[in-house]
């Protein structure tokens, strides 16, 4: 059933938004032109005019909301106190200022119904480390195999890349049905070799394992493709020289492949860590029994905000999570110099 009038509404809603955006940018550029080109005759008039629209967009959608969130994090805004906080909740229609209480609660009270911060943090670390480890090792392994002269390479590559290509919202729901206790393919296949059946969806350990299996399936192709690109840029001559000098395959891998892959691998691992740490779709779709043992920090944040509507608390929790990511990134970048060269 395709409703043409609704289609028209969608088109006009999006269309009007675009027209308003274009008009706003045009007015803005006109003002900037008059100010910087005509009046100030600024040397950097053009870059100013080029950057300003994006800068305003980013200020409006990153900086302002984050400041606002910081503001909310000092209030007890929640579903019962759905009051817009004004300044720190002090200027709201009712005083909802609570100071640092939310930040204290993140570490002392339960974040979800029972689970506290430290358990969630441990779960997140296990989740991230396990996933990234398998992404990297399997990704390198498959890329090494794909990098040989082989018949059917293109076909293998196309098949192996599929998990990345399918929209995750679709593939994850398929995975969830395959973990069904009685009818899912996973238990049926394990049954063929005399294992199982296992309660993938209802028991904590098994559900966590199911999430990891699914996310490894989902994330390996990205790493594989990145590594393959790196491998293809390594000249054959290195290997030939090493072979003449009597190096075995293990030795050439350790002394040629790994060091030359480093510039590709280090940013890819950083990116992969973020993607896994922030992976909310996999836990959301694979853990639909609301097992708190399968929650990681970001899914707990989603629940705190949109399921339990504890907005003030969720805002404080969000900044704690951000601080964790920031500390990790700073150390990683210092340690590996991952971003060297990106600023030139």
């Amino acid at each position: 059933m395709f409703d043409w009038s609704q289609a028209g509404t969608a088109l006009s809603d999006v269309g009007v938004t675009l027209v308003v955006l274009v008009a706003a940018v045009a007015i803005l550029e006109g003002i900037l032109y008059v100010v910087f080109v005509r009046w100030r005759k600024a040397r950097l008039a053009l870059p100013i005019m080029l950057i300003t629209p994006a800068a305003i967009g980013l200020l409006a959608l990153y900086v302002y909301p984050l400041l606002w969130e910081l503001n909310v994090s000092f209030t007890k805004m929640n579903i019962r106190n759905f009051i817009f906080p004004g300044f720190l909740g002090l200027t709201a229609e009712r005083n909802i200022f609570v100071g640092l209480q939310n930040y204290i609660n993140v570490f002392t009270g339960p974040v979800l119904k029972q689970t506290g911060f430290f358990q969630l943090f441990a779960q997140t670390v296990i989740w991230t480390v396990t996933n990234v480890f398998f992404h990297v090792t399997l990704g390198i392994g498959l890329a090494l195999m794909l990098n040989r002269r082989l018949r059917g390479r293109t076909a293998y590559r196309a098949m192996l890349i599929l998990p990345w290509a399918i929209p995750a919202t679709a593939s994850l729901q398929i995975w969830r049905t395959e973990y069904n206790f009685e009818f899912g393919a996973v238990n049926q296949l394990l049954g063929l070799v005399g294992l199982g059946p296992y309660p993938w969806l209802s028991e904590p350990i098994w559900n966590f394992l199911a999430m990891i299996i699914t996310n490894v399936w989902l994330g390996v192709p990205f790493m594989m493709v990145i590594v393959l690109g790196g491998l293809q840029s390594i000249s054959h001559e290195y290997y030939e020289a090493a072979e003449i000098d009597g190096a075995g395959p293990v030795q050439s891998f350790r002394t040629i492949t790994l060091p030359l892959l480093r510039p590709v691998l280090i940013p890819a691992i950083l990116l992969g860590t973020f993607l896994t740490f922030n992976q909310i779709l996999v836990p959301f779709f694979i853990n639909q029994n609301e097992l708190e043992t399968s929650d990681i920090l970001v899914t707990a944040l989603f629940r705190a905000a949109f399921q339990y509507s504890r907005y003030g608390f969720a805002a404080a929790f969000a900044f704690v999570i951000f601080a964790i990511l920031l500390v990790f990134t700073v150390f990683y970048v210092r340690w590996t110099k991952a971003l060297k060269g990106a600023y030139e």
Partner: protein
Amino acid sequence: MSAPVPTATSAASKRSLLRRLTVAPARGQDAPVKRALIHLGLLFASLIAVFPVIRVFGTALRPGNNLLDPNFSIIPQGATLDAFGQVVFESGLAQWLFNSLVITLGTAAVGLVMSATSAYAFSRFKFRGRGLSLTFLFATQLIPGIMLLVPIYLLAVQLDLVSTYRGLVIAYSVTSIPFSIWILKGYYDTVPIDLEEAALIDGCSQLQAFWKILLPLSLPALAIVFLFNFLAAWGEYFTASVLIGSKEELLTWTLGVARFQGQFQTQWNELSAASIIVSLPVVILFVYTSRYLVSGLTLGGVKG
């Protein structure tokens, strides 16, 4: 009695056969045994990668009275296209796909224009605060999406933007900008500046040099960025679920398809058919362009 002779030759030929199988025929090639092992490994991995896809086709073809048959045949008994007809003509899938397409195309276009121009400024001009701005763009990628979603939702409630596409279009297009700028700046940096300088000497303005020389040369990168933003918005779930809510006719396909899966009862064949319909065009596009997508990624973001 010449028994030992054939034994000796067969041993020799065996040895040479073993040699032929385990020693590389030429440099850069693999011995047959190694090649067979590689094929085996790749085949096994491909099977795992493809397995859910094969299963989905099997499930989608099942007739409604045979949904929970624990049977692995790829073409199920009584295979039928009913489920496809059901989701196309009876469910809201066509509507949801249309909604997604309109939103996604709009946002990808806005994001591309904004980032293509900003990236030019970052690539070709030196100004105070440039390094800081690039760091800021990188830092935005550290922010968990959900962290941003909390205030954006509350602000959307305050500004009355919930249950419309306006908030969603703006949110998608702006959040795509930082990553796009990084990739495009990386690409612009690889284009020699001499061409533009020559154009400037010939009387072009700086803007004309950008428009007539750099942009056409950057078409591959622009296509990559458009595709990236398109794919990201196309499969997005949480922002849409929070900003659009639950009005049936407003849903994007990601929200709509999730509805096939109830808490207690799932229309497995319809879920599968819908998944195939939404995935097929994107998968073809992705596999076809993946080589360029990755080169774009490594050029911009992963420049070592």
